[in-house]
């Protein structure tokens, strides 16, 4: 069935994955200093629980979860708290952060700990263990993972979908995870399936990762109903609604959560992180980051301690080339350009891409000629051309009627726009303006 492999519309940016898709994951040494923002996930920021001068071991919490929609933040290296201060955050703002001077010797040493045995735990205990380990969605959005393990009871979940699409150009961290740690990923799937009480799971992987498809297929245990499903190579195949459409053929109703169609979606990296909690007992203190781009001297897939500054990360990759122009956290389609390389790698950092000058969007804009390419690109079937016209003159209410809320800012429209109109930026700004207006009215 053709619907089982893709979705309508979307775009085909150059994949650029060959820079790193054959490079084994390596471990980056500890930097001299790490910076841990207390806000690294969707939901409430963590509550600070250390003071300047405290010594922390690797895995000690520096912030605790503030309610259910929150997770703790843990020290990613042994060291001394040198400061608690406002620090550049990868999202472009400043965030309250814990600055830790890393110990010169044995920064990797963690305290003695117990490893929970997952089979003896109830669902609630699994949820709590995952929350206490600070696990969030590692695909970029950093949604607390334990919340997805406890879906609302009014909907029956029948399928766990694992997102291995990795449709953003350049990024290969999920790809390498599946190639190198398929058993760990499948162990994570097993734990999640049990916690959710589902018997069926589908792992969607874009066809441009044949080695990952191969490795995952070979690792599926006989007693687990896990299907490895190759998907059309198309952006944004990894967007939750697009993935669900590709796997189940069902469209998640506008404005509703995936659980309304009986599925829960989890990213490959997050599943591997869950597995690690029950394999090693360590919280989420490091993640796999693709460092790549035509502006970088030595692209790599690295295990990076959370809190590593971009400056240190790029230096470890032999620095940037003379024509490097833009440093993006995440992929080039939805990532965030960095103005300050003191910003740290956080839990949601899938990759760091250094774009060369010729790749950037510095070219001038032209008026919209209504060519309609954006309509053919939009995966949720909006009319970006019309929305863009509205956004430019501040007609936000008209944008609401044109379903601005359904825009997930995937950037497909702006990518194809021949007039180089920054459509996603206009939509993001419009969403912010609407939120402010609502907050003001309330």
């Amino acid at each position, binding site marked *: 069935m053709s619907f089982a492999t893709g979705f309508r519309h979307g775009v085909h940016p150059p994949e650029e994955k060959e820079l790193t898709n054959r490079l084994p994951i390596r471990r980056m040494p500890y930097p001299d200093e790490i910076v841990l923002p207390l806000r690294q996930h969707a939901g409430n920021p963590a509550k600070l629980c250390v003071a300047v001068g405290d010594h922390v071991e690797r895995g000690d919490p520096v912030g605790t979860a503030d309610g259910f929609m929150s997770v703790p933040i843990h020290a990613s290296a042994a060291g001394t708290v040198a400061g608690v201060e406002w620090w550049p955050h990868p999202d472009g703002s400043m965030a309250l952060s814990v600055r830790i001077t890393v110990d010169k010797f044995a920064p990797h040493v963690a305290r003695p700990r117990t490893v929970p045995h997952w089979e003896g735990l109830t669902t609630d205990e699994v949820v709590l263990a995952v929350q206490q380990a600070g696990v969030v969605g590692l695909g970029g959005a950093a949604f607390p993972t334990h919340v997805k393990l406890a879906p609302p009871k009014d909907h029956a979940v029948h399928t766990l979908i694992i997102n291995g699409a990795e449709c953003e150009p350049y990024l290969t961290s999920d790809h390498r995870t599946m190639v190198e740690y398929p058993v760990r990923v499948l162990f994570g799937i097993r734990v999640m399936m049990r916690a959710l009480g589902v018997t069926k799971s589908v792992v969607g992987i874009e066809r441009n990762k044949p080695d990952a498809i191969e490795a995952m297929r070979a690792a599926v245990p006989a007693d687990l109903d896990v299907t490895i499903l190759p998907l059309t190579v198309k952006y944004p195949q990894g967007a939750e609604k697009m993935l669900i459409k590709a796997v189940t053929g069902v*469209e998640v109703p506008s404005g509703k959560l995936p659980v309304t169609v009986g599925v829960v979606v989890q990213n490959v990296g997050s599943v591997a992180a869950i597995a690690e909690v029950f394999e090693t007992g360590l919280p989420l203190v490091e993640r796999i980051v693709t460092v790549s781009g035509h502006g970088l001297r030595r692209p790599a897939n690295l295990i990076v301690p959370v809190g590593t500054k971009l400056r240190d990360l790029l230096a470890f990759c032999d620095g940037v080339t003379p024509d490097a122009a833009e*440093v993006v956290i995440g992929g080039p389609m939805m990532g965030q350009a960095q103005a300050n390389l003191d910003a740290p790698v956080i839990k949601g950092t899938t990759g760091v891409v250094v774009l060369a000058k010729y790749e950037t969007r510095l070219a001038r804009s032209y008026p919209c000629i*209504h060519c309609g390419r954006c309509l053919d690109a*939009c995966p949720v079937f909006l009319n970006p051309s019309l929305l863009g016209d509205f956004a430019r003159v501040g007609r936000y209410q008209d944008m609401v009627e044109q*379903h601005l809320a359904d825009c997930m800012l995937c950037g497909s429209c702006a990518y194809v726009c021949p007039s180089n109109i920054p459509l996603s930026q206009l939509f993001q700004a419009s969403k912010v303006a609407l939120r402010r207006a609502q907050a003001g009215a309330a």
Partner: protein
Amino acid sequence: MSAAVAPALVVTASPHVRSQDSTPRIMWNVAATLVPIIVAATWFFGVSSLLVIAAATAGALATERAFGRGGTLADGSAAITGMLLGLTLPAGLSLWMAALGGAFGIGFGKVVWGGLGQNVFNPALLGRAFLQAAFPVAITTWPTVGGRFWTLKGDLFALPFTHPLPDAITSATPLGLLKFEGKGTAIEQLILGNTSGSLGETAALVILAGGIYLAWRGYLNWRIPAAVLLTVIVFSAIVHAVDAHRPDPLFMLFSGGLMLGTVYMATDPVTSPVTNRGRWVFGAGVGVLVVVIRIWGGLPEGVMYAILFMNALVPFINRATQPRLFGTRLGGAT
């Protein structure tokens, strides 16, 4: 360590990369495909073709330069307007009229609306419509195909507002012949373009080739020409079947300005619908109107008015054919 990092950082909003196509690139590609049509026109009508097209283009460019927003000549759209207008004119038209048409098309067809992307009507056709109203005789004086290359097809260098000297050999267009004299024209003659008519009416195959190239590159939307041509074929086949004296579909396709209008004017993205369903509606509307005007109207040719009329409906077509939002499928899971 900081030495390893670029001295200046570019910060743009996502997405940080873009496809290679740009609006000027699309426009200049369209303009480039007009060149073979101009060559064909010159083959049939001699140097007069080049002069008329150059005059129309000069009028369009000068107006864009004088009244448009700065730097808009480089985007190529005014050049297309001028060349297209030139291709809709007869070879013997006085140059000042052609230039005036170009100026009107850009001035009243584009600049007053706010420039590129803002206009409702196709500027080239608006210029043509203006000339039709202002100089009804001159614009329907069709020189005969052939003759020496350097022989002018009319009083091209007439001073403005003098009466041009009617010294060229003229003949009716195939549509005119059919409408007013009841005479047909051989289809081979039509396809090759070896007939009397406006400059760009005469090279159907070259126009079609240009259209196919542009559609293949994604620079024009194939749905509009497909809809227009299909509608004309089907509708005129029905009419022909009912009354055999009416022209057959092949004659309809290859006579008059249908090919030029369909491929290059109905597909103007600015003045055609933005939705794909809307494009089918728009194209079908143009096709129906062309046949209606040609067969039952007072004029021999109707492509210009058909497109201009459908241009006016574009905002309504757009509104009526908005895409269905993802996750709102009728009868699906809700």
